[in-house]
C-alpha cells in the first residue's frame, strides 16, 4: 500500500484531533485512566486495552456518562506475544494514536532473589513493548501517518541498584522508541518517548516521594497531550526531571557506583 501523496496544504498527517481514535495499551493504570479522561473529554473515540478487560467495563461506562465518549474495552496481554499482530489488525478503524502505558515494577530485592520476578519485568517492560510495537510500526509506516507514544521511565536513564531490572528494561524500551523514531520520522509517523519521574499512582503507593518532584496522573496526561500536539521527541514529566537526570547521567561511574540513589 503506497502512502498517500503528501501535499502540505491538504496535509494528511494531522487528521482532525477530535475524530482520531486512540488506543491505550495497559488501560487500567492511573496514568492510563488520566489519559483516557483527557482524550474522552476532547471527544476522541478510545480503545482501552488491558488484561481482564471485563474490569474495564466500569471505565467504559464512566467515560460515556461523563463525556458522552465512545470507548471500547479490549483484552490485551503484553506478554502474549503471538497474539499481538492479530490484536492490532482487528482494530477497525485503525487508531491514529497508540499510547503504550503498561509496565511492571516489582521490588528489586525480590527480583534479586527470584529470577522469575526479574524476568517478568524484562518481558513486560521491554519484550512485550517491542512485540506489540512491531505490527503497529509497520502499519503506520505503510499508512504514512500515526503517532506512537511510549511511557518509559527516568529509571532507564541510568542503571541503579534500587531498580536495575526495571530500569534496564525501560532503557531498552527508550532505545527501541528512539530507533523507531529514527526509522519512521521520514514516513510521517511521530514517536514520542515519555519519561515520568515520580507519579502519584498505585505503583508508587507507600513510597514517600518528595511532593515538588511528584506529578499527579492528570498532569502527566496533560503534558503528554501537549507533547503529541507539538510533535516532541522526548518528554520528561515533571519537567525538572530532565535536569535531574542530566546530573545523574553525568556523575562519573567511579563515584556513581558508591552512591545509593
Amino acid at each position: 500500500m503506497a502512502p498517500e501523496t503528501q501535499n502540505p496544504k491538504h496535509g494528511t498527517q494531522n487528521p482532525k484531533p477530535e475524530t482520531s481514535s486512540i488506543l491505550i495499551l495497559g488501560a487500567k493504570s492511573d496514568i492510563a485512566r488520566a489519559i483516557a479522561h483527557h482524550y474522552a473529554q476532547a471527544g476522541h473515540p478510545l480503545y482501552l486495552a488491558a488484561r481482564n478487560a471485563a474490569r474495564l467495563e466500569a471505565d467504559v461506562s464512566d467515560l460515556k456518562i461523563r463525556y458522552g465518549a465512545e470507548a471500547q474495552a479490549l483484552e490485551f496481554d503484553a506478554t502474549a506475544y503471538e497474539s499481538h499482530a492479530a490484536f492490532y489488525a482487528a482494530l477497525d478503524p485503525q487508531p491514529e494514536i497508540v499510547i503504550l502505558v503498561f509496565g511492571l515494577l516489582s521490588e528489586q530485592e525480590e527480583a534479586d532473589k527470584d529470577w522469575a520476578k526479574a524476568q517478568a519485568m524484562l518481558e513486560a517492560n521491554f519484550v512485550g513493548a517491542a512485540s506489540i510495537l512491531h505490527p503497529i510500526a509497520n502499519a503506520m509506516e505503510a499508512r504514512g501517518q500515526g503517532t506512537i507514544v511510549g511511557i518509559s521511565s527516568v529509571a532507564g536513564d541510568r542503571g541503579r541498584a534500587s531498580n536495575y531490572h526495571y530500569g534496564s528494561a525501560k532503557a531498552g524500551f527508550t532505545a527501541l522508541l528512539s530507533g523507531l523514531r529514527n526509522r519512521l520520522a521520514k514516513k510521517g509517523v511521530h514517536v514520542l518517548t515519555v519519561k515520568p519521574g515520580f507519579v502519584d499512582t498505585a505503583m508508587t503507593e507507600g513510597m514517600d516521594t518528595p511532593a515538588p518532584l511528584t506529578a499527579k496522573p492528570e498532569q502527566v496526561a496533560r503534558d503528554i497531550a501537549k507533547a503529541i500536539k507539538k510533535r516532541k521527541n522526548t518528554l520528561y514529566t515533571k519537567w525538572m526531571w530532565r535536569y535531574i537526570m542530566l546530573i545523574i547521567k553525568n556523575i562519573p561511574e567511579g563515584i556513581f557506583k558508591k552512591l545509593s540513589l
Partner: protein
Amino acid sequence: MSHSNWGNYPITDATEHRFQPGMNPSELNGYWIPRGMGRCYGDSSLGDSMLSILPLNRFLAFDETTGLLKAEAGVTYADLLETFVPKGWFPPVTPGTKFVSLGGAIASDVHGKNHHKEGSLSSHVRSFELLLADGRILHCSPTENAQLFEATLGGMGLTGMVLNVTLQMKPIETSLIALHSIKARNLDELMDLFEQYNHVTYSVAWIDCLSKGNKMGRSHLTVGEHASLEQIAGTKHAQNPLKLPPKKAIPIPIYFPNFALNNLTIKTFNFLYYNRQFKKEKKSFVPYEGFFYPLDMLLDWNRIYGKRGFTQYQFVIPPENGREGMREIMTRIAQKGLGSFLAVLKTFGPQDSMMGFPTKGYTLALDFPITKKLFPFLDELDELVASYGGRIYLTKDVRMKPEMLEQTYPRLGEFKALLKELDPQQRIRSMQSERLRIHE
C-alpha cells in the same frame, strides 16, 4: 506518613492503602478504617491503617429519564456536579463542601440546607454494596440487609467500606439558585424568620456569635430554590441555563500564624459580613456554587486557623427547647469570647436513624481554633446540649467523651451489637471509635 483530617488536629502517623477491586481487607495487618477525602473535621477517618476509596471513582450507570445513578463510592460531589448539572440533575442532598466522596457522605449521612424539606442523604440512597471486614460483599437496601443499610448511613465507616451506591438525583431546570436574603437583628427575629420561610427548600443562617445583649444572634437568613426556566426567562442566563459556574479558586498558600485570628479580627469580619447587605431584604439569582459551597472557593481555607488546627462544634437541639437552648448556648459562647467567625444555623426535619446525626430541631455549627481552654469549654457545652435533649455530629467531633455519646444516641447499643456480630474481632476501628469506646 503523617495524616490529619480537615481540622489539622489530630495529626497521626498511619499507613494509607489504595483500595483496588478484589482486595480483601482481612489481609491487612491490624485495625483499619475506610477513608475518602479526609474532609471530616476530627479523627473519624484516621486509624492505624486507612483504606482509601478514592481509586474507585467511576460512574457505572445513569438513567437520563429517572435520574437514578449508580456510582463507585470514591466519586466526589465535585465530580457529580460537573457531570450532572449540565444534564439537568443535582445531588439530592449536599454538604457544605463538594470535596467529599460519596462513601464519606454515606458514612456521615450528610445533610444540607434542605433537611427540613427533603431529609438527609439517607432518604435518597436506594442501595449500596458494602465490603465487610471479612471480605464478604453485601448488597444493602431498605429491603435487603436492612439493618446494615441503616447502620451504615451515619455509621462512620465502622460497618465496612461502601464500594458503590445507587442514588436518586434531583431534576433541575437551571444551575442557578433563586436567592432571598433577609437580615435578622437578633436570635428571636431569626427564629421567627425560620418559621416564616419553612416552606422554602433551602435555608441557612449565618450568625454573629460574638455580639451580646439585644444584638445576640444577629444574622443573615438566606433561603433559596433551584431557579426555574420561567424565572430566568429574558435574563442573560436563559441562553445557557445549565451552565457550570466558572472554576475560580483562591488558594491559601500558608498556615496563618496563630495570632491572626483573634476577637478583634473576628469582630471586624462579623461586622463587615453582617453589614455587607445594606437593605433588610435582597432577592437575586446566583450560581449554585456560592450558595452551596462558599468556602470551596478558598482552597485549603483550614490553614487560616494556623498549624494548631481547629475543630467544628455542631449540635442539634429539639424544637421545643430550641429558642431557650440556643439562647443559653450562644450566651455562653459570647461570654467566653472563644470566637468563631462563621457560625451557621439550620433547621432539621424529623429523622430517627440508628447513628445518623439529624433529628428534628435547630442545628448550630461553629469553628474554634484548638486552644488549651477549648476542650473543657466544649465539655460544658456538651452538658448543656445533652440537657436540652440534643446531640453532636460525629463527623465534626474530635473530643467528645464516650458518656456523652451513650447519653445522646439512644440506639448506640443496637449499633455496637451489630458491629460485634458483623466482625467479632472488631478489625474496623478509627481513632474516634476507640476514643468513644464503641468496641467495648
